[in-house]
């Protein structure tokens, strides 16, 4: 792999409403500078894909957005959400995560029933009304395209579901919390193509009411579902633009080499 200049960047600004903005975000694992100067604007009600080779810092960046990296890394810079810098010590991180929720690479349903997987966090956050809980269970499972498959088995263990169903349950679990932004960290990389297609279809539906940021290894996936795409390389964001521009007419050599399969 040849060396690419980190000074040559092509980062567009978002003309429409923004869901989240980062300014000069730095992430350090101890002394290791894992993410440098990440300044990106994420559009509201759109899907943004973060692509790049393994170790390029895209997952690190994503996990910083709802402060999931707090325990293991130092994150500097600003994360602006609703005119507030949520990367501040004064911010209640638990409150942040109610607005900015995350789905992980490997499905991680709780060892509870399907229904409880969804209602658990709701109840702990003070929603006691049975009708409201029922409504949220049905609604969130429908938005994750899982309702028809599980509506008769809501009291069965979530661990009995297939991997793809479990991942859609994890998406439903987040959706039920009615967050603003959904972060997905390679949600389909452990799934078969049919499950992957269902997840992608689900995300396209969810875009109507959520802002979605997804890390993916799969460039076809990014080009299929994302409105905007950011290319990460060795801890730097080198290019950020509309997905069609990234894939048909990249401005940066590194992006072009990556999407044409020359490295990564």
């Amino acid at each position, binding site marked *: 792999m040849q060396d690419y200049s980190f000074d040559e960047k092509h980062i567009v600004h978002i003309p429409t409403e923004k869901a989240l903005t980062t300014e000069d975000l730095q992430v350090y694992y101890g002394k290791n500078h894992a993410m440098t100067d990440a300044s990106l604007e994420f559009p509201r009600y759109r899907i943004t894909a973060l692509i790049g080779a393994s170790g390029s810092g895209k997952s690190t960046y994503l996990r910083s957005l709802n402060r*999931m990296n707090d325990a293991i890394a130092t994150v500097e810079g600003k994360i602006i959400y609703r005119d507030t810098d949520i990367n501040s010590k004064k911010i209640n991180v*638990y409150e942040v*995560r109610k607005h900015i929720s995350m789905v992980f690479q*490997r499905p991680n349903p709780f060892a509870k029933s399907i229904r409880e997987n969804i209602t658990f966090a709701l109840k*702990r956050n003070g929603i006691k009304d049975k009708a409201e809980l029922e409504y949220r269970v049905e609604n969130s499972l429908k938005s994750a395209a899982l309702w028809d498959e599980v509506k008769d088995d809501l009291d069965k*263990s979530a*661990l009995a579901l297939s991997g793809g169903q479990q991942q859609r349950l994890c998406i439903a679990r987040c959706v039920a919390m009615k967050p603003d932004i959904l972060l997905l960290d390679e949600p389909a990389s452990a799934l078969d193509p049919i499950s992957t297609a269902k997840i992608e279809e689900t995300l396209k539906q969810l875009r109507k009411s959520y802002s979605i940021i997804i890390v993916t290894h799969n460039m076809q996936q990014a080009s299929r579902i994302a409105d905007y795409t950011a290319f990460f390389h060795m801890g730097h964001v080198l290019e950020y633009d509309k997905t069609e521009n990234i894939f048909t007419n990249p401005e940066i050599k590194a992006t072009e080499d990556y999407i044409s399969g020359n490295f990564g």
Partner: protein
Amino acid sequence: MNSKAANNVATGVIYALVVAVVGILVFLLGYILITGVPHVSFHFLTSAAESFKSGGGIRDQLFNSLYLLVLTLLISFPIALGSGIYLSEYAPNNWFTNIIRTAIEVLSSLPSVVVGLFGYLLFVIKFNLGFSILAGAIALTFFNLPLLTRSIEESLEDVPDLQREAGLSLGLSRWKTITGIVFPAALPGILTGIILSAGRVFGEAAALIYTAGQSAPMVSYSNWNPFSPASFLNPMRPAETLAVHIWKVNTEGVTPDALQISSGASAVLIVVILLFNLGARFLGNWVYKRMTAAK
């Protein structure tokens, strides 16, 4: 020697070693049960011990063992649970945590007779508890805590980090994540740990000789007032347990049937501990299935 022959030799040696281990266990269990079970009868289990005549039973000792076990677990489980949660969920990886872990290891390797003598000096004499179930339960807590803490810590650590991240990413606090997600997922392992430690506590003698005492005064099983000295629930009375009884009958028993009594009592002790072990497996599996498999 070619690799196939080497493999055969190694397999043979390993099998032989396993057979040796199982053989020793079967021999021990078989010997104790065959010599003891013929002396176990309903009368033996339900009548009081005799000091000089033959025909005494182990009713009080059996009850004392169970009561002491319950008290010990009541004291040690909350402490072990708290420290297990701390070690697995909160403890940073630093010198202080290392000191705690080392302390737990040292505590777990203390000889039980030393724990017993310490309990005698501190609780029985200094704190004036006298030979009592309470002093015994505290001594057994010292003896039980390290292993119970370890097993709870390990059960919690066996829960994948993905589960914690799932809870946190939904906006749950760390404490809610631990109590609502991690603890239930670790419950089968924790239950197994409790029951296995119960087996050890049940069979312990050395730590009790100087703390719970070697005498089983007459108690009334119809007196439910735990403050009455004659009540079977009074934790301040001396209480000889089954394991201590076996030791005492063997060393200074003067009844004509001392040998039969110690054989019978040993068989009962072994059977109860076996039941604990089997119960631990069964309960652990059952809870795990309840929590994970379809209803």
